């Protein structure tokens, strides 16, 4: 499965994540994200509007992406979490680790 992305006028890479981020899909998703973010410069917004399920292996994708970007002084934010996914972020405590926005616009505004 291929993950879609585009770059906004302001130079933010918006990556739309797939519907399930679990142990099975995570390695492939991670590889694709790595390709996109190492290929292009700028901040990254991970859009989760299509993501219905994130397991602990899926959460790792967010962590390693964020660590990689941070070590290169680039910013990352997450937007459009569905309720079920938002709950997973809340339980794991990741709500306080990431900049999370309810809409793409808010996320983009923060990343400029």
């Amino acid at each position, binding site marked *: 499965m291929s993950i879609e992305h585009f770059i906004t006028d302001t130079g933010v890479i918006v990556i739309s994540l797939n519907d399930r981020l679990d*142990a099975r899909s995570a390695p492939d998703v991670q590889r694709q994200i790595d390709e996109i973010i190492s290929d292009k410069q700028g901040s990254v917004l991970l859009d989760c509007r299509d993501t219905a399920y994130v*397991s*602990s*292996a899926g959460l*790792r994708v967010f962590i390693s992406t964020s*660590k990689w970007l941070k070590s290169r002084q680039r910013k990352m934010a997450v937007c459009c979490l569905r309720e079920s996914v938002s709950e997973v972020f809340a*339980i*794991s*405590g*990741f709500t306080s680790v990431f900049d999370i926005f309810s809409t793409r616009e808010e996320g983009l505004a923060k990343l400029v």
Partner: protein
Amino acid sequence: MTRKILVVDDEPDLEALILQKFRRKIRSSEFEFFFARNGLEALAKLQNHEDIDMVLTDINMPEMDGLTLLEELLKLPTLTKAVVVSAYGDMNNIRTAMNRGAFDFVTKPIDFRDLEVTIDKTLGELKALRDGRRASDTLNALQQEMELAGRLQQSILPKSYPVREEISLFTKMVPAKDIGGDFFDYFLIDEDHLGIAIADVSGKGVTAAMFMAVSRTLLRFTALQGLDVVAVLAHVNNLLCIDNEMSMFVTVFYGILDMQTGEFRYANGGHFPAIKLSQNRTVEFLPRTRGIALGVMEGIEFEEGSVRLAPGDLLYLFTDGIVEAENTKSEFFEEKRLMDFLRGQLEEITPEKVVTGAQKFVEEFAGDAEQFDDMTQLALQYRPVNNR
């Protein structure tokens, strides 16, 4: 990738013909040809060029004929496919050649268009064979890795429950095929205090199992120093953050029960809080406390929660393998079903009944669907001596 083909024939004309007919494919590096005049020469060439994909051989040759060469090819460790060139209608030799492992044959005089098709077909077959062999190698390695991870996981789980009259414990872990990295632990910190933990490492296989082993050791070691729950998680978190290149993390729920008073203090590193089944007929999650999964960020502060257990109360700890068990319709088991099940257990609460009952309930729900995460549970019941 250049495909390498060895042509074995005692007639020198064939060499010139092949170089001429395949000149485009040679120029574009699609094919590279090697030539030998008999079977012996061919074997020598194969020894020097182990990456030769295919042998095209005549049958009648001096020194070593094609049929003998075929036998020798079978003894080589490399996967090399052979195609024989035979006289038209020479069914006997063709049969023999096929019996000795030849993949196909072409007849003389050679039709080069047919030869090209035959080469393509042979190389295609070879590729499938090699892919198959590689896949089976990878699979074997994976299976070994999973077995190793499984053994690691089993070896770190405590084997026997502490013998204390004030408590009753029951645990169960059903590992997923590819090992999800769950663990539980319990230990006496001193005469009056029992530590319990349940945890889930992100990721699968050996990396997860290693991280799990490290996490469990650090947690137990730190906990046995007698630190409070918040200090234990903070300390383990900082240790796990050091050189954590793989971005591994572990969610941990850790608590200490004072067996004299029934007071249970807990801290939570991004795990589900425990559920309390109470003698007064309630089933509820312990209040959430601040904290995040361990190994993510250094210097995190955790918040302590506490609850006073009444005699007979039970704490139920679980990992996401339980609530995220999936059935064949891709529905999750979910917290609601778990809570409903637990509410049905209030008549007669025992740790073993709750844990085995929940396991059975989840498995009935999941049916034939394969489960991808470990299912781990721990139940602790408080039953002080003077109350029985």
